């Protein structure tokens, strides 16, 4: 039950993209087509969960025992960069089909602030391993959900007469703002679930 609340809260109520402002650059960059949005979403779910698990282990068994907490940022970003590289190489060798689908998005993910952001949030909130995995999966799913929804909306926008000055990123951001407003509505779901517990 507690995990369910965590999932709903991470995915919908405190959506990583629309309420926590993480991962906006890929959001604006790849949301113009549905297939790229789906590919990016899948790649983020995969890498984000894996990297949060790795950084949790690194923090718990390498940084904490030796009092190296101040190196967190440096170590985490290097772990993520190395992990992305490894995943890319592994997929290329052993799962060429998956690589074809996700390959081009992988290098972009290193600098997706959602990945590093979620890893740090998990440490700051003192989650245990299971909570870290669940939280990362749900956050990444929330990111993909927002991305795919946005791709759908942008397809409609592309045939609408948008004022010239607002074309491109400007209208995307305003649409994202309206979506964020809609996601505000989920706050009630969170409250009633907490009350159920």
């Amino acid at each position: 039950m507690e995990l369910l609340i965590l999932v709903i809260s991470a995915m919908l109520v405190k959506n990583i993209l629309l309420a926590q402002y993480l991962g906006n650059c890929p959001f604006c960059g790849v949301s113009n087509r549905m297939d790229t949005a789906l590919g990016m979403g899948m790649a983020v779910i995969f890498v984000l969960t894996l990297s949060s698990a790795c950084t949790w282990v690194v923090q718990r068994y390498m940084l904490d025992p030796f009092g190296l907490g101040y190196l967190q940022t440096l170590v985490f970003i290097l772990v993520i960069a190395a992990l992305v590289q490894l995943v890319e190489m592994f997929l290329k060798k052993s799962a060429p089909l998956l690589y074809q689908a996700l390959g081009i998005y992988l290098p972009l993910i290193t600098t997706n602030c959602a990945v590093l952001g979620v890893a740090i949030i998990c440490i700051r909130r003192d989650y245990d391993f299971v909570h870290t995995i669940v939280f990362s999966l749900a956050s990444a799913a929330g990111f993909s959900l927002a991305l795919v929804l946005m791709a759908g909306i942008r397809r409609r926008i592309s045939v609408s007469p948008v004022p010239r000055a607002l074309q491109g990123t400007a209208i995307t951001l305003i649409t994202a703002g309206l979506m964020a407003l809609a996601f505000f509505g989920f706050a009630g779901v969170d409250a009633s679930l907490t009350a159920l517990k």
Partner: protein
Amino acid sequence: MMDLRIREFTKGLWKEIPPFRLVLGLCPALAVTKSADGGLGMGIAVTFVLLCSNVLVSLLRNVIPKKVRIASYIAIVATYVVLVEMITQAYFFPLYQKLGIFIPLIVVNCIILGRAEAFASKNPVLPSALDGLGMGIGYTLSLTVLASIREILGSGTWFGMQVMGSSYQPFSFLVEAPGAFVCLGLILGIMNSLGKR
């Protein structure tokens, strides 16, 4: 010669001002601009990292092998971010708490990596430093402007001081997440219509 130097400095202030013209580094621009001091503090932190990393990348541009350049840039940037993190924690604790997770996330701010890759890796030290400084000041300016609009209209204060009369009803939509997206989108639109003709 002098003209060229000045242009390298000033392009970050208007012609390519991030994040309005050069649409990079959106996440912190949305997240920390709830109040003017947050925007200014984040801008200064980014300027410091941008200047230092541009200088170091430019100094090492003939030493770093092409294949591992991105990883090397990330390591350089992360080093300075750890410095900023420790300095703000020690001397500017309220700011450290306000910016929270977004201080470590300076590592993945695409402006910094973008300037390292697009400019500092190809140019000598002085132009790179000017480029970094110009872009950094431009980013600080934009963040402060965006934050001022949101704080003045959204909570009736500016840098914590009451500026609107006591009868002013704060437009609290602007300090929430949806307001951030809409506000940034509208500013982008204004910048576009100013720039196009």
